[in-house]
């Protein structure tokens, strides 16, 4: 991630250069969408969360502080947006693929299909707070510090939450035969 480039693009956005924000969208569309999808599983919800995250980021650009990484700030927005969507829809922690009608899954290779399905089901079976640290660590490849900034929790909490999340996730995957 080119932090200096992001700060420069944000500066241009603040000066009214809409094209600069288009470049930020192009750069972060995929990780933001992946974060939302891994939090929500549903592609339509993930699209909504992605779009809302960018809209909120655009609206709040003036409040962004350059001493923090731009992508940490952006990831925070999409994780919070995803959690808001989950809370609003009162998702059950026990989700079974067969019980969810009309869920759209993204296009993925056949070889990835079973792995993706099983992993996503396991992710949805742990609470959003634990899911968030797993998503940020393993799907967004954030450091402890970046996760701490994004979720506004101490690094110590990041580490302990990661350990618990990993144990829960591992148990779920072992139950499904993947581990």
């Amino acid at each position, binding site marked *: 991630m080119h932090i200096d480039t992001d700060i420069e693009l944000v500066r241009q956005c603040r000066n009214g250069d*809409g*094209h600069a*924000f*288009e*470049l930020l*969208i*192009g750069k972060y*569309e*995929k*990780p933001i*969408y*992946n974060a939302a*999808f891994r939090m929500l599983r549903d*592609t339509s919800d993930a*699209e909504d969360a*992605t*779009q809302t995250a*960018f*809209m909120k980021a*655009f609206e709040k650009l003036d409040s962004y502080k350059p001493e923090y990484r731009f992508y940490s700030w952006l990831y925070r927005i999409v994780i919070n947006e995803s959690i808001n969507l989950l809370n609003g829809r009162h998702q059950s922690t026990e989700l079974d693929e067969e019980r969810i009608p009309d869920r759209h899954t*993204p*296009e*993925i*290779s056949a070889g*990835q299909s079973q*792995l*993706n399905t099983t*992993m996503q089901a396991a992710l949805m079976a742990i609470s959003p707070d634990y899911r968030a640290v*797993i998503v940020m*660590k*393993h*799907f967004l490849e954030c*450091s*402890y510090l970046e996760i701490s900034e994004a979720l506004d929790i101490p690094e110590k909490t990041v*580490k*302990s939450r*990661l*350990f618990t999340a*990993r144990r829960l*996730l*591992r148990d779920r*995957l072992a139950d499904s035969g*993947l*581990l």
Partner: protein
Amino acid sequence: MTDSRSIELIQARLDGEISAAERQELESRLQADPELAGLEQKLAALTDVLARVEAVEPPAGLRRRIISAVVPSPRRSNATPVPPRWRLPQVFGYGMAAAFGAAVAAIALQVGSFGEPGRTDVSALIGTMSSYRGSQAGQQTSVGESGQRIVLDSAALSGSIDTYSRGGAVILEFDLAAIQPVEIMADYSPSRLSFSGFARSGDAVASLNTGPGQLRMSAQKDHRYALLFNPDGQAGSIIELRFVADGRLLDKQSVEIPATD
């Protein structure tokens, strides 16, 4: 019971956030505690499985929707009138257009030619665009029954290319945003189409090079301009578009110009 320090060290090593001193400390702990080694293996196995899960691709068109929602642009849709930034005389007389706009356009445009003898001096064809409607109350006519809009949605280039007819001319209107300099090449049959004009929008900067049956447009970021063609005869034709950056073909599209009745 595994202590918190050991857990912290195991995770730090798995996550690539361990120092050399901490690595040594962890090795000592692992050698002294087989249960700890077992825990590390379990967490490592989980990390390996997570690493095998591939990222998913965002749905096609999502970026365009986000950009449209976040950064509204004055791009025209088929259902909306031409915005006033496009200024084109009702009858696009190129001498008039050149006189009207050449002084402004020449600042922003670099015009050249290449290849076999063909049109070598296109400066008279360059202008800014006045409203297509002029004094006419008529509407644009889409080329073909369904009209033509090509939407590009890639990391390097996104936007639209609209094709329609006006006053007997066929107009290709480019409204594209690029993250790097992109060259657009348009190939067409010179026996069926004559290049008749190039017009830019606002302060868009572009260069245009022409050759027989081929045009090359280059811009740093935004491609906001229009190409005008006059169909020669009644037979249909095709304009082949290629989008190139750093010598790589990014995309290619075909624009069909149907035969006139």
